[in-house]
C-alpha cells in the first residue's frame, strides 16, 4: 500500500507548507468548502472511518451527534495527548506532516460548523507543539486558516494547548476539563461532549490520526477509503510497534494485516535468540495476547473477537526474557500513578494491585494473590467507574493473571512469608510488632 498518513516521511523539508501544497495539500479542504457540511460528514460516514484514539467509534457518526441548530459556538478538539503506553504515531504525523493534520482539523471543524479548534498536545511534546504552531502560522499567513478559510466566508482559528503531564488527560472528558483550566478529572457521561463539551458547548474530540485520514477521504472519496481493509474496519492504519522486535517503529499498513505480518515481516521478527511470549495489540490498556493468537487480524472487530482490542494500535511485543509478573507490576505502577483518584475501585484498586504484585516480586507472594488480583480487577471494570481508566488498568492485569498463571505460581511456590514490617505509623503510635501491614 502506498503511504497515505506517512506520505511525507523522508521527504525533504516535508513540514513546510509549500512542500505540502506542491503535493496536492489542502485540496481536500478546498473541495469540502464547496460542499454542505452535512455532505462532508456523509462522506466520512460512508468511508467507515473509525476513531484511532482508542475506542474505534465511527467518526462520521460522532460528528452527526453535534446538534445542528445549536445557536452558540461549537468546538473541535484534536486529541494529541498520545499518552497510552506503546503509542507513538501521532508524533510521527506531526513531525513529518503537520499540515495534513491541520487540513483534517479544518475539514472536521467545517463539517460540525466549529469556528475554533484546539489541539491538546501532551506537555512533554515541546518540540512537536512548536512544529504545530509554526505550521498554523504558515496556514494563517496563506489565508488557509483565519477569518476567511481559503477565500470562503468560513472562519476558523486553531490553537495549540499544551497539557502538563497526566495520562488521564487523554480521556476526552478529562481533556476537556484540563482545557478549561482545571484539574483533569473525567466527567460522568452522559451528557456526551458532542452535546455538552468544552465551555459547555457541543464539542467533537478526535484523535490526530483520525483527523489525518480525513483529507484523503475528501480527495479520493469514501469508496477508496472503504476499499482498504474490510467492512467496518477500513482505511490505512498506523501500527506502533515497540519492545523486543528487531525493527520497532511506526508502520502504515492497510487495516487488517495480521499481527504475524506486522511482527515477522515488517518488524523483522523477535530479536536474536528469543521467541515471542506475549503482545499487547493496542497499547498497554488492551488485554494481552499470546503467540497462538499471532494470526489474528489487527483490526477493531478481529481484536474484539479475540478478547482484546485494537485500541490505539500500539503493539507492545514481549519475548521470553520477560517475567510476566514483572510486566504486570510495571503496568500497575503506571495506572496507580495515573489514576485521577475520583473513584474508589480505580484509585484503591490500582494501588492495591501494585502492592500485591510488588510483594510477589519481592518473594513474598501468597497462594490467594492471583484470585485477589482478579477480584480487584473485576471491581474496577464493568462500568463501576466514572471513566474507562478503571478498565484500562483492570483488563491488562487480569489478562496477565489469567493467561500466565504458572508464572505467578512459580513466584508463589518459592515465596517466604513477608517478615513483619514496621508501618510508617503515626509518630505517637509507637512500634506495632508483628503487624503485617499491607
Amino acid at each position: 500500500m502506498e503511504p497515505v498518513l506517512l506520505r511525507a516521511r523522508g521527504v525533504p523539508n516535508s513540514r513546510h507548507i509549500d512542500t505540502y501544497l506542491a503535493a496536492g495539500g489542502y485540496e481536500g479542504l478546498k473541495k469540502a468548502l464547496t460542499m454542505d457540511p452535512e455532505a462532508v460528514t456523509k462522506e466520512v460516514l460512508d468511508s467507515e472511518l473509525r476513531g484511532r484514539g482508542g475506542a474505534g467509534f465511527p467518526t462520521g457518526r460522532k460528528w452527526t451527534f453535534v446538534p445542528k441548530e445549536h445557536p452558540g459556538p461549537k468546538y473541535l478538539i484534536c486529541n494529541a495527548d498520545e499518552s497510552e503506553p506503546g503509542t507513538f504515531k501521532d508524533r510521527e504525523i506531526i513531525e513529518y506532516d503537520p499540515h495534513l493534520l491541520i487540513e483534517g482539523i479544518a475539514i472536521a471543524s467545517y463539517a460540525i460548523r466549529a469556528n475554533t479548534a484546539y489541539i491538546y498536545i501532551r506537555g512533554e511534546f515541546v518540540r512537536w507543539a512548536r512544529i504545530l504552531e509554526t505550521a498554523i502560522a504558515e496556514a494563517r499567513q496563506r489565508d488557509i486558516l483565519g477569518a476567511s478559510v481559503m477565500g470562503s466566508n468560513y472562519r476558523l482559528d486553531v490553537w495549540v494547548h499544551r497539557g502538563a503531564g497526566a495520562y488521564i488527560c487523554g480521556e476526552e472528558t478529562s481533556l476537556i476539563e484540563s482545557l478549561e483550566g482545571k484539574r483533569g478529572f473525567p466527567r460522568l457521561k452522559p451528557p456526551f461532549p458532542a452535546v455538552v463539551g468544552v465551555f459547555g458547548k457541543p464539542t467533537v474530540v478526535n484523535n490526530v490520526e483520525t483527523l489525518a485520514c480525513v483529507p484523503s477521504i475528501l480527495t479520493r472519496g469514501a469508496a477508496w477509503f472503504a476499499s482498504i481493509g474490510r467492512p467496518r474496519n477500513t482505511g490505512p492504519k498506523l501500527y506502533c510497534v515497540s519492545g523486543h522486535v528487531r525493527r520497532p517503529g511506526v508502520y502504515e499498513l492497510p487495516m487488517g494485516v495480521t499481527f504475524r505480518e506486522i511482527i515477522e515481516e515488517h518488524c523483522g521478527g523477535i530479536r536474536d535468540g528469543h521467541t515471542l511470549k506475549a503482545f499487547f495489540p493496542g497499547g498497554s490498556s488492551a488485554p494481552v495476547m499470546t503467540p497462538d493468537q499471532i494470526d489474528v487480524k489487527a483490526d477493531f472487530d478481529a481484536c474484539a473477537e479475540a478478547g482484546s482490542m485494537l485500541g490505539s494500535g500500539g503493539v507492545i511485543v514481549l519475548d521470553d526474557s520477560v517475567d510476566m509478573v514483572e510486566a504486570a507490576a510495571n503496568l500497575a505502577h503506571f495506572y496507580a500513578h495515573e489514576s485521577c483518584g475520583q473513584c474508589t475501585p480505580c484509585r484503591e484498586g490500582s494501588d492495591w494491585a501494585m502492592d500485591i504484585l510488588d510483594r510477589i516480586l519481592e518473594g513474598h507472594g501468597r497462594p490467594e494473590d492471583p484470585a485477589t488480583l482478579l477480584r480487584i480487577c473485576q471491581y474496577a471494570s464493568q462500568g463501576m467507574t466514572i471513566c474507562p481508566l478503571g478498565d484500562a488498568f483492570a483488563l491488562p492485569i487480569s489478562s496477565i493473571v489469567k493467561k500466565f498463571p504458572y508464572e505467578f505460581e512459580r513466584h508463589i511456590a518459592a515465596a517466604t512469608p513477608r517478615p513483619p514490617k514496621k508501618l510508617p505509623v503515626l509518630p505517637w503510635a509507637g512500634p506495632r510488632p508483628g503487624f503485617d501491614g499491607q
Partner: protein
Amino acid sequence: MRTVAIHAVPEEQLTHVTFDATMEERISELLTHYPTRRAALLPVLWLCQERYGWIAPGVIEAVAARLGESPAFVQGVVTFYTMFYTSPPARYVLQVCKTLSCAVCGGRELLEHLKARLGIDLGERTQDGTFQLIGVQCLGACGSAPVIQINDDYYENLTIEQLDALVDELSQGKEA
C-alpha cells in the same frame, strides 16, 4: 541538539511577582485563544515556568490575581499535573521513562547506571545542582526505547555510552 539549562529563580526573589511588559503582552495574547480567563491557566503557568524556572508560591499568587482565580484553585491545578515544578529544579532534569517498552529495552539499565554514576536516587539531585533524576511514565516514544527527556528535549535509542557522553558534556557546563 542544544538542551537549554534551567535557571531557577530563587524563592526569595519570587515572593512578590509582578509580570513585566513582555509577560503581560504574552498573557493578553493567550487570553484571546479562549472564551474564559480560566482556560488560559495552563498556558500561563507554562509561561511562568519558562520564565522563572518553576512555580513558586509567589508565582501562584500572581497568576491567580491575573486570571481572577483564588490561589488555592491555582495551586490545586498546579499540583495535579506532574510537569510543573513546585520546588526549584536542577539545571538539567533527567527524566527517565520507566514504563514497559522502555523498561524491557534497556531503560532499567540506563536508570541504574545514572543512579550509580551520579550517586543519587530517583527524586534526588546532585549537590552542585546540575542534575536531578526523576522517573517518568511513558513519554510516547516507545519505538525508540530507551527514552530520556532532559528538560524539554527527547533523547531516544540511548546507549549507556551515549548517555555518559551526554552527561559529561552537560556537567562541563556546555549546553549539549
